[in-house]
């Protein structure tokens, strides 16, 4: 049996009470907006369509493919749902999925459910949608642009969900940020690849079979909100990186680190467990962790961008 | 006396351009039990969707119980025509059997006590009284089909329109269905590929092919005409 799509379902007890409650408050607001937006988008069909698509994501999460060494790739689905239906509809779909997983299967806790939904359903939906739409705009029409945009959107959506999870664990004092961030980033950089491959496979199928379905997402409400989320995430990452990297006062940095409790004495040896995320020229693990994430993001983004361009021009030339 | 169902020169094309009905004429008198047969793609399901206004006629006219189907009459028409879909998983969309059978009466605006009484009666009529609190997805196909019929019986319709009620049933469940259909007093239009069921339950048969009614008459005569059956992809019993 063991039905574990992605290790992002936080159980109860792993987040502190204030953090959990903030999650619920944010979720309540988000869902209220999502309900209003999709009601406008879908009218009377809202309930049956959202319900069946939530059931679809649940079933799709159970489809997996063997990768290597007993691991397998599978889908979380937030990005796919958002690409097809738009971000607000995806929020409702993923809210139902994560709620049922928590209530029926104890996959993820109840008090922490606010964050579980935000991480796996809201952040993934908006990140995936924002990146997808942005790249579509940059790369133009056509199949390759669709696939590149879908791949990067899906990969990044998992990354953002994972990093958000790491931050909540860090703020709750359950896991030092300097450990949680790079560890989550590392594991989910791989898991995200599975997400990207399946999402692209699904988009390819839909592009061939029912191209009209892919235009629902184009016209769905939530473009502006998605842009704000995208810009906000970008700014947050850049500011975080620069404020640490540019800090001339290593003591200040040290103090920040100690205040938040993530740079204990024993951190150095633990950190060496994850040498892959340490860039040689930066000694502080947290900074290099964040930078590594940004760098990885840019590399993947750029590679997919170039690939689509090259393929596109080859087709145009032929 | 008005006809319960009156369809005149009905034409319909799906949005993708496929013409499914090319001039259908059909009248059914109160109390009649009529079988609708024909090969796959003949247009049987499409015709049935017109009978309670889920599809709007491209050309021609449809009226039910003397009401022509318009936005204002839609509520009355849907209360008068109990339409049961081919796949019971589409018909039973609520988590429990009770909620599904209550859905129709509740949305007709009936009082709660009346709704509960109707659910009880409808489930009893199909012999599923003990199933009210069951969860739909755990039921067998035969049980689902019976409950699907109960979901419209609870609306006390004048006419039952059933799309392939016997598909996927084992012999015993099929037997039970035949008994149920014979006992129910409503006017009935039932599409099926099961000609033995037709012979047992329905005095009158309508054959459709390629979007038209190609034969309409007493079941015994139609089913006793091998050339006619063969021409429309049906096998003599």
């Amino acid at each position, binding site marked *: *049996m063991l*039905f574990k799509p992605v*290790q992002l*379902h*936080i*159980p*109860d*007890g*792993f987040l502190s009470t204030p953090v959990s409650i903030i999650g619920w408050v944010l979720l309540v607001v988000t869902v209220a907006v999502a309900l209003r937006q999709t009601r406008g988008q879908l*009218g009377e069909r809202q309930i*049956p*369509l959202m*319900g*069946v698509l*939530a059931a*679809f994501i649940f*079933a799709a999460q*159970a*489809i*997996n*493919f063997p*990768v290597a060494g007993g691991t397998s*790739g599978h889908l979380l689905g937030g990005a796919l749902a958002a690409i097809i239906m738009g971000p607000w509809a995806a929020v*409702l779909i993923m*809210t*139902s*999925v994560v709620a049922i997983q*928590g*209530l*029926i*299967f104890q*996959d993820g*806790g109840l*008090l922490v459910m606010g964050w579980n939904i935000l991480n796996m359903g809201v952040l993934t939906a908006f990140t995936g949608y924002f990146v997808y739409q942005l790249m579509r705009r940059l790369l133009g029409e056509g199949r390759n642009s669709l696939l590149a945009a879908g791949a990067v959107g899906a990969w990044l959506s998992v990354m953002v969900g994972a990093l958000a999870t790491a931050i909540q664990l860090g703020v709750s004092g*359950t896991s030092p940020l300097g*450990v949680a961030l790079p560890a989550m980033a590392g594991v989910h950089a791989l898991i995200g690849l*599975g997400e990207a491959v*399946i999402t692209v*496979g699904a988009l390819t*199928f*839909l592009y061939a079979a029912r191209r009209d*379905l892919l235009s629902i997402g184009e016209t769905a409400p939530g473009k502006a909100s998605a842009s704000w989320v995208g810009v906000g995430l970008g700014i947050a990452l850049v500011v975080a990186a620069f404020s640490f990297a540019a800090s001339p006062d290593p003591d200040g940095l040290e103090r920040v680190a100690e205040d938040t*409790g993530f740079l*204990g004495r*024993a951190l150095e040896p*633990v950190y060496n467990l994850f040498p892959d995320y340490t860039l040689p020229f930066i000694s502080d693990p947290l900074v290099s962790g964040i930078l590594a994430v940004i760098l990885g993001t840019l590399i993947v983004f750029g590679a997919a961008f170039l690939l689509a361009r090259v393929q596109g021009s080859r087709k145009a030339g032929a | 006396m008005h006809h319960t169902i009156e369809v005149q020169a009905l034409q319909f094309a799906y949005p993708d351009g496929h013409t499914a009905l090319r001039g259908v004429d059909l009248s059914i008198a109160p109390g009649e039990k009529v079988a609708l047969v024909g090969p796959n793609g003949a247009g049987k399901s499409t015709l049935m969707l017109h009978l309670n206004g889920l599809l709007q006629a491209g050309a021609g006219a449809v009226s039910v119980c003397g009401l022509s189907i318009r936005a204002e009459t839609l*509520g009355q028409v849907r209360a008068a025509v109990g339409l049961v*879909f081919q796949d019971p998983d*589409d018909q039973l*969309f*609520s*988590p429990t059997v009770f909620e599904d059978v209550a*859905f*129709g009466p*509740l*949305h*007709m605006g009936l009082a709660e006590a009346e709704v509960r009484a109707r659910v009880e009666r409808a489930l009893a009529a199909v012999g599923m009284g003990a199933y009210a609190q069951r*969860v739909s*997805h755990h039921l067998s196909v035969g049980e689902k089909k019976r409950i699907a019929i109960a*979901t419209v019986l609870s609306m006390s319709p004048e006419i039952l329109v059933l799309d392939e009620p016997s598909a996927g049933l084992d012999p015993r469940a099929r037997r039970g269905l035949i008994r149920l259909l014979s006992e129910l007093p409503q006017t009935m239009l039932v599409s099926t590929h099961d000609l033995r069921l037709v012979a047992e339950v329905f005095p009158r048969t309508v054959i459709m092919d390629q979007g038209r009614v190609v034969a309409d008459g007493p079941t015994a005569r139609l089913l006793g005409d091998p050339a006619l059956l063969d021409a429309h992809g049906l096998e003599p019993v």
Partner: protein
Amino acid sequence: MLHIDLADHYQRGTSPIHRLDPRVKIVGTLLFILAATLLPPGSWAALAVLFLGSLGVAWQSRLGVTYALKRSFVVLPFALAAVTLPFTVPGATLAQVGAFVISVEGTVRFLSVLVKSWVSVQVALLLAVTTAFPDLLWALRELRVPRPLVSIISFMYRYMFVLADEALRLQRARAARSAQGQDPRRTGGSVLWRGRVAGGLVGNLTLRAFERSERIYNAMLARGFRGELKTLTPPTLTQFDRYALAGWVTFLAMASLIGFVFAR
């Protein structure tokens, strides 16, 4: 390839816990988890009291005292997320393994997280096991969860097994065809190809979901749906429900008190 636990955990029964109003059960479960989460690290006495409370509920539900206990280890894999605490929280040295220093405080924090999580999942499990999901749904509606959201979840619950079945059938059909291996380059297939195949199944399932939802919408219209879902009014709380909730809250308050009084 398809891994899915197709049965939910609900066990039919007539125990007092089964008969308790689902609203009371939901609120009681959330309060329990809140009480556990709020405890300061190392509140072993209070956690033990909470644990006894969950055993008591299991006993009253007549599923056997250890029913939830045996099924509550699902949280263990996630323990990995907190496993660095003993090494990273500064404090008195408990042990030293090579270059790693294990601190007392860190170990206490780590074990507290684990035990909190473990007792929480036990009551969450008992809630799911003793309450039919449709009952949870109307209770959520009564507890002011937005109605459209509850309805969406109810449709999801109805169709998740139907679509999982469709997924299973698609996968079997694909497996049966690929066994013939018309395309020699693709037999077995690279990881990427296998992933694309899985993705194709997901795409196919998307179409089926859309078509299914359209047929369901038609079935709803056919039975008088006009855009607003109506529901019957649920039963009111009984005296038994009220006393049970009051007793439970008192118990949780006492457990919390123990936790904070004996906090280090």
